[in-house]
Structures are given as C-alpha cells and as structure tokens.
C-alpha cells in the first residue's frame, strides 16, 4: 500500500516554478533518500508532503488524505506525519521533556503518566535522559536534533520527513544524529523520506534514492544500483562531485 | 537605579522655587499701562454675551469685552489700546498673578475667598446664579435638585454654591462652558448651573433649553486686579462710574442683553 502519491504535482512561488510535474509513489515501510544540488526542490517537495507548502496543480495523497483538496484537515494528517527540521525548531519556552510531551498531551490526549513514561523512554533511546529538564538553549545542536527526533516519535507517526537533519550541525555532532535516524528507520518499520547531503549515510540507510534537479525528479532507483552507477549523466556528475569532496 | 532617587526631591524643589519668586506685585500696573498706552485684559472666550471668540475674525466679543474697551478709553484716553487674552475660569487667577494680564474682566464674581488673594473693583454687573435645563425637565428650582446631577465648570464658585443649596445633588465639574453644555445635551447631568447672564447666553445658542428658578445667589461681577494695585482699582471704579453717568453703561447692557428672551435687562440699568 502506498503512503505517498504525487500525481503531476506543480508548485509555484509566484512565477518561480519550484516543482515540475512530480510523479512519485512511496510505499509503506520504505526508506527513501532524496538527493540533489541545492535549490533543486528537495526541501520544497518534502514540505508539501505535510502541507507546510501548498501545491498549485496535480494530486497529492498522503496516508489516505488528499492534500490537493482544501477541505482536508491538515492537523489530522500531521499527527501521523512527523517532521525533523534542519534547524530543529524545538520550543524555546519549554524544557526538553515538555518539548516531547506537549503534542501527545494536547493533540492525542494521551494520559499524563503514560505520556511521561513514553517521553522518558524516548529520551533514553536518543541518549539524553539526564537532559530532560534542561531548556533547549542549554544543549548542543546535535542534542537538540535528537530531542527533535524524540519529539516526532512521541506522536507515533506512520511517516517521518527529515529535511536536511544534519546540515546545521558541527561535523562531530553529525554522527550521533545519523545513528539515531538509522536506529529509528531500521527498527520501527516506519516510512521515511530523508533529504540529506550525507552520501555514506544515504547509502547505508536508504532502500531507494531519488535524485532531483531544477524542480524535477531526474532519477528514481533502488539504493544499490544508484550508488553503483547512476543512470543519468546529471546524477553521475553530482555524485562524483560530492564524493570527491 | 540609586541615581534616580535624588531626582525627585530636586524636581520638587525647583518647582516650588519657581512658584515662590515673583515680582509682579511690586510694579504699578497703572503706571506701566500709561507708559505703554495699553491695558492687557483677561476675558472669556467661550461665554456668549460676555466674552466669546467670533470664529470669523478670531476676536473676543461680548459685554465684558466692550466694558474693557470703554474702561481702557476712560483710563488711558481715546488713543488707549485694549489687548485681550482668552482665559478660562480655571486659568484667569494664575494668569493675573503671573502678570500675563493686567486685569481680568471675565464673568468673575466678587467672593471673600478670592478677595484673600486678589483685589476687585466695585461690581460692574449684578448677576445671580441660576439653572439651565431642557425645556421638558421636571426641575423647577433648586429645591428639585437633590438626587440629581448638576453640571458646573471648574474654577467657578457656582459649584460650591450648589452644594450649599442642594447638599444631596451630585456635582460634576467640566473644563469650560462649551463642554458643560455638551455634557448637558448628552444627559451627563440634569441641569447646568452658573450665573444667569452666562446661562441666558447658552439658552440663546441652544433652543430647547431654558433658564429656570430665578437667581438663588447674588453674584456681583468685578474687575480683578492684583493685590496692592490700588491706583488701578480706583481708576477702574472711576471709569465705570463715569460710564453709568453718561449712559454708556446702559447702552452696552441694551446692546448685549436687549434681545435675550426672558431676560429682564432693564433691571440691570444703572444711573
């Protein structure tokens, strides 16, 4: 069964054509990595999936909800679709534990005790339990991103979107975060759509790779074949540049 | 934070000092007036019939203003100039005390309290306090005022008088007669009280309202001058007396009050 379906989707910012005729189907349980040069529309595509960006034409169905229909309740959709941002976006006015517990409490109405136990378990999982009562401003970028992942998991999403989760991190922090993402994708069976520039990580975690350029999907292949030898010349160029760096 | 605390007493001291030092009273107003050939009068600007600014030419017009012009000629001679400064009930005494005006002729009753701090000429107009009400009002006289709201003007003694004749009336004070009249129209009060001359002026401007209940006080208007200016006070008294003898006074009374409905202007004539 498919989790995400794009049918001839077009996205414009004014006159700028951000997404060209996107057709894409992602099945439940897939881990899909989205790569491509900056400005190629990867982030925009990911953000249309939970409705943070609207689409102008075509049909987009996520977890059974039709995002091209203005009557669709995005809040219900979003409670099943988690998102991890480049800049973490932790709530600055809440401590680490509250960041994780807030949405389960006010969106899913989980009993407080259960909610707290789940939050602490999640903090254990990302290795940050002792930071539970610190404010976001008191922890490092890598720690923030791990809290953000825990916050997303607390909603028990069916799909997680990662929008360049390590781009804003210092190099020595990146690995911890990638380990957590790997653990989540391997163990949970959730669907994941990941925008990243970390090719080694992509190779390890993905079972499918989508290469985008100038707002179009240029290549869509299983991970192994893509990283062995991309079919298109543009993807080959991109890959050789990235790896030689 | 500590620095700021000494500012407060300092500020208070400065303000008090500026209030204390003054020398206006030491100079003879009459002598200065004769030297400059000008008398500066404080008059009303919002009181019809006594002192009202004419929006067409910006000049104050009314009985008080005409009196001031005539008195000026009597004191300084035909070339004497009268200058006018608009005052309110609230500002007229401070302006006089500060020396901004030489004399005040602004519907000002001679009262013992005021006499403690300024001097008055003899009365030049005999007013009395009365009430202005809507024509359909149930208020007939001051007896009906208890429990009602009466509008007065800040700085006028009419407010204190009302408290004497109708202790249970609620009194609110507004900034000037125009606002007091507007408040009466907006039903913020049941009656407006002040001197009958002023009230008749308001009644002329506002059909639908009338003066009721006769006068319940005697309010002799006087020209106010600073204490110690005896020579000037005497000169004013002399001028007013001359005007009464030669009929100028009665002509001014007729000019301003002759057409006011319900006002027995001839009772004000003086010989």
């Amino acid at each position, binding site marked *: 069964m498919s989790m995400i379906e794009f049918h001839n989707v077009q996205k414009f910012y004014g006159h700028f054509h951000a997404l060209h005729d996107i057709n894409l189907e992602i099945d439940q349980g897939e881990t899909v990595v989205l790569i491509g040069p900056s400005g190629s529309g990867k982030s925009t595509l990911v953000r249309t999936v*939970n409705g*943070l960006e609207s689409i102008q034409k075509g049909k987009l169905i996520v977890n059974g909800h039709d995002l091209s229909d203005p009557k669709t309740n*995005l*809040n*219900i959709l*979003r*409670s*099943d*679709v*988690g*998102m991890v*941002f480049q*800049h*973490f*976006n*932790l*709530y*600055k*006015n*809440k401590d680490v534990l509250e960041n994780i517990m*807030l*949405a389960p409490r*006010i*969106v*899913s109405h989980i009993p407080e005790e259960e909610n707290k136990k789940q939050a602490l378990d999640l903090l254990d999982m990302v290795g940050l339990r002792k930071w539970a009562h610190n404010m976001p401003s008191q922890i490092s970028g890598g720690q923030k991103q791990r809290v*953000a992942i825990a*916050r*997303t998991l607390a*909603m028990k999403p069916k799909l997680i979107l990662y929008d360049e989760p390590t781009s804003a991190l210092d190099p020595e922090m990146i690995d911890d975060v990638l380990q957590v993402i790997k653990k989540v994708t391997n163990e949970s069976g959730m669907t994941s759509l990941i925008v990243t520039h970390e090719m080694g990580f992509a190779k390890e975690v993905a079972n499918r790779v989508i290469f985008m350029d100038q707002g179009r999907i240029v290549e869509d292949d299983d991970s192994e074949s893509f990283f062995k030898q991309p079919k298109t010349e543009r993807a080959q160029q991109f890959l050789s540049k990235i790896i030689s760096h | *934070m500590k620095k700021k605390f000494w500012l*407060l007493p300092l500020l*208070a001291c400065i*303000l*008090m000092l*500026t*209030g204390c030092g003054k020398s206006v009273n030491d100079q003879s107003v009459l002598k200065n007036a004769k030297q400059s050939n000008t008398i500066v009068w404080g008059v009303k600007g919002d009181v019809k019939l006594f002192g009202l600014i004419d929006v067409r030419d910006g000049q104050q017009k009314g009985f008080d203003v005409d009196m001031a012009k005539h008195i000026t000629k009597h004191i300084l001679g035909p070339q004497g100039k009268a200058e006018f400064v608009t005052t309110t*009930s*609230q500002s007229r*005494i*401070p302006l006089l*005390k500060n020396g901004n005006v030489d004399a005040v002729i602004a519907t000002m009753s001679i009262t013992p*309290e*005021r006499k403690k*701090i300024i001097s008055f000429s003899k009365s030049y107009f005999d007013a009395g306090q009365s009430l202005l009400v809507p024509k359909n009002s149930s208020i007939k006289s001051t007896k009906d005022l208890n429990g009602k709201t009466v*509008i007065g003007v*800040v*700085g*006028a003694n009419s407010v*204190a008088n009302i408290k004497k004749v109708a202790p249970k009336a609620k009194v*609110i*004070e*507004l*900034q000037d007669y125009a*606002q007091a009249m*507007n*408040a009466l*129209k*907006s*039903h*913020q009060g049941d009656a407006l009280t002040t001197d009958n001359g002023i009230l008749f002026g308001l009644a002329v401007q506002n059909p639908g309202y009338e003066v009721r209940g006769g006068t319940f006080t005697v309010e002799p208007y006087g020209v106010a001058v600073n204490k110690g200016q005896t020579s000037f006070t005497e000169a004013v008294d002399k001028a007013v007396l001359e005007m009464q003898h030669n009929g100028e006074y009665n002509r001014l009374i007729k000019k301003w009050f002759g057409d006011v409905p319900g006002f027995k202007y001839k009772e004000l004539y003086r010989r």
Partner: protein
Amino acid sequence: MINIFAKFSSQLLVGLGWTVLSSIIALFFSLIIGTIFAIMEVLPSKVMRVIGHAYVEIMRNIPLLVITMFFYLVIPMYVVKINGFTAGTIGLTLYTSAFIAETIRSGIQSVSNGQMEGARSTGMTYWQAMRYIILPQAFKIVIPPLGNQFVNLVKNSSVLAFVAGFDLMYQANSIASTTFDTINSYLVVGVLYLIVTLPISYYMRHLEKKLG
C-alpha cells in the same frame, strides 16, 4: 505642598482611587483587546489582517481625548448613557489597546517562523501553537515595552479630568481652583502619580533583568 495634601487628603485619595481603578480596568481590557487585535494582524486570513490593522491605525492615530469625548458626549446622545468615569476608562482602554496590539504583534513576529512550523508539524492547530508556543515567547519579548505602555496608561488616565471622572487630575483642577494655589496643587498630584508609576517602572526593569 504638605498643607495642600493635609487639607485635601481625602479628596486626593479619592482621586487616586479612581485613577488606580480606571488604570487597572483599562489595563486588563486593553491587554485582552490588544492581544486579540495583535493576533488578528498576524493571521493568515487577509480580511482579518486588514480589520486588525485598521483598528490599530484608527485607535492610535486619534487623540485619546477625542475618543473619550466621543464616548462621553456622542454615545450617550444616541446609544446609551455612560458617565464620565466609564467614558474615560473606555477611551483609555481602546486607545491603549492599539499600542498594546502593536507591541504584541511585533513580539509575535519576532518569534521565528520555525517555532510555528515545529508546532504545526506535530499536529497542533494554529490556535494551540499560538497559545502554547508563540504567545508565551512573544509576551516574554514584549515585557519591557509593555511596561512602558502601562506607565503611559496611568499617565493618560488624566483624560478622566476632562469628562468629570473624579480622578487625580480632576481633583487637582478642583483644588487648584478653590485654593488658587495652582503650583502646589499640581505638585501634589504629580507626586501622587509618581507614587503609582515609579513602582511599575522599577518592577518592569527588575523583570526585564530577571528575564534577560
């Protein structure tokens, strides 16, 4: 100055009471109204934004005295009788609410967009995100400028004097005109205003330090 206070202390304290009461009422309602219009000004709906903006621009660009006179003189003539204290307090509330709305709006807009996106991406509604995430952060940012608005509010309450609202300024006018001691009458109420406003100023400064 002491003499004036001693002689008219009951009248002055009544005035102080009305000034403080009017200020508290106006503070309470202008905070609520100001917050509502601040939120309207940042809503996604263009109609709401225009309404919010129109309210703020109209209220803060008309003199307080005009708004107050409107409620004191015009409304009673055509709608309902309201006394001077009420008219003055309504005027004060509406006028202040426009400035509070502007202050809070700028506070909301200084909270980064990522906070809203982070909250919305977990399934919170716009209003939940506002209530739990955006507004608490916005209020923290705007505490110092809000403090200034509160001090202004207390000072502006002297508009009550013009509509017979029995406040401190009204009593000052009344005392000045009965005693003819203008300077000391206004000095006394000046000090009484300071007694109300200085603690607010200092408390706000303290709060600012504590939060910053």
